[in-house]
């Protein structure tokens, strides 16, 4: 937009919208790259996870490649993951979702993450974790599907039956298919 008249100077119009406030908090602090401290359990507003958190979680998954995971035993990776989910909740899970769904991490590490996501005791993130586990049943990687199955087994939630049945109808690995059927039986009993 230009100012009318004889001026040839380029102009830029900078609109600003702000809450009327007499606070002294720097405006920059309002939009800084930190984890939100506003409760948003019921909110569906889009909230971008902080870039710093993305880098941290990506690095944790990267470091996880060097670990040897043993069934049922907590690893440094799973302990760190658990702390992050409890500390950052939805923000952390959004990053984990991108890394796992878009297959940006090693299947073995993704599988370990899913196994532990089913075991974490954290009510606030429960629905999101269950969604991610059910979603991961359709992963291209059988390792990831296996991790999701173990996670769902730990959750022991009847509401997963429907998604397990869809996954069974798509499953190409006979061993996994049998495990999925066993879990359906477990949940139905």
């Amino acid at each position: 937009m230009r100012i009318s008249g004889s001026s040839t100077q380029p102009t830029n119009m900078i609109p600003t919208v702000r809450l009327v406030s007499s606070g002294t908090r720097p405006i920059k602090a309002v939009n800084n790259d930190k984890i939100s401290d506003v409760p948003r359990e019921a909110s569906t507003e889009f909230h971008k996870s902080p870039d710093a958190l993305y880098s941290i979680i990506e690095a944790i998954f990267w470091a996880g490649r060097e670990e040897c995971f043993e069934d049922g035993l907590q690893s440094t990776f799973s302990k760190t993951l658990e702390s992050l989910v409890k500390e950052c909740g939805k923000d952390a899970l959004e990053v984990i979702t991108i890394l796992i769904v878009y297959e940006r991490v090693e299947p073995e590490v993704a599988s370990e993450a899913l196994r532990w996501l089913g075991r974490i005791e954290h009510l606030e993130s429960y629905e999101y974790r269950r969604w991610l586990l059910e979603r991961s049943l359709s992963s291209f990687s059988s390792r990831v599907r296996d991790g999701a199955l173990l996670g769902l087994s730990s959750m022991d939630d009847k509401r997963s039956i429907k998604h397990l049945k869809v996954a069974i109808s798509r499953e190409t690995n006979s061993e996994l298919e049998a495990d999925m059927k066993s879990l359906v039986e477990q949940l139905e009993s």
Partner: protein
Amino acid sequence: MSESEHEPVYPETTIIWEAESLRLTAFPSPSAELGAQDWWKQLIGDEPDSKIMEPKTGVQREEGRIKNDRVDGQLILAIQPNRIDWQLGSILEELPLRGLPTIGSFSEALDFFLEKMLAWLKSTAPAVNRLAFGAVLLQPTSDLKDSYSHISSYLPFGLDEGSSDFSYQINRPRKLSSSDIPDLSVNRLSKWSAIKLSTGIFTGPPDNPNQITEYFNNSTRFAVRLELDINTAPNSSEELSALELSDVFHQLVELGKEIADKGDIK
């Protein structure tokens, strides 16, 4: 704030609100297949102005301008693994010198948005188990005092003269009454505040536009801002059928209109 002896005076209707943005958010079922889609073209009848893939966030984003006798704004379709957003918002780069950055009156913009969204939900939307209607509404006022006076008429308490820095957010959950789906809880979030809008003009030399030599404060405007986020609770894993989806979304919109009309009511 005096909580007692305050009788809210409900303003007329949603007509007095202008819409800054309207949003539909659909949360896909874990079994939904989100592959290649041409929802935009099917809904709008044309290609979007831009298609962007943000590698880090995994967001697929399509954008285009919608201009007709009811709305003028930017429509955005953003797809992520865990959510699909349709948002119709004002174009900030074209902020008017007078008035507020809106897409049109709430009632007219909502007519258009609802018509498009219901068409999408009935025809091509994937399996969804949670749905939300969001809106940011503005009501122009003459100054801060006027803003607070307007806000008071929508709230169950009054704001004392001379008070400032007011912001109020509340969730008043309800069950959907006429739905066939049993126990569908709905979150009714509303956030009330007063805003001040300033438009500035920066000037600089033609050979170095980044160097600012002069600044003119073009105009200042005031408004009441209402943010609505009406959504089905996240603990349902039941997929909603296409018919249920459109019915539920319609009801979420009605709940939003009720708050815009009557204020913060239970």
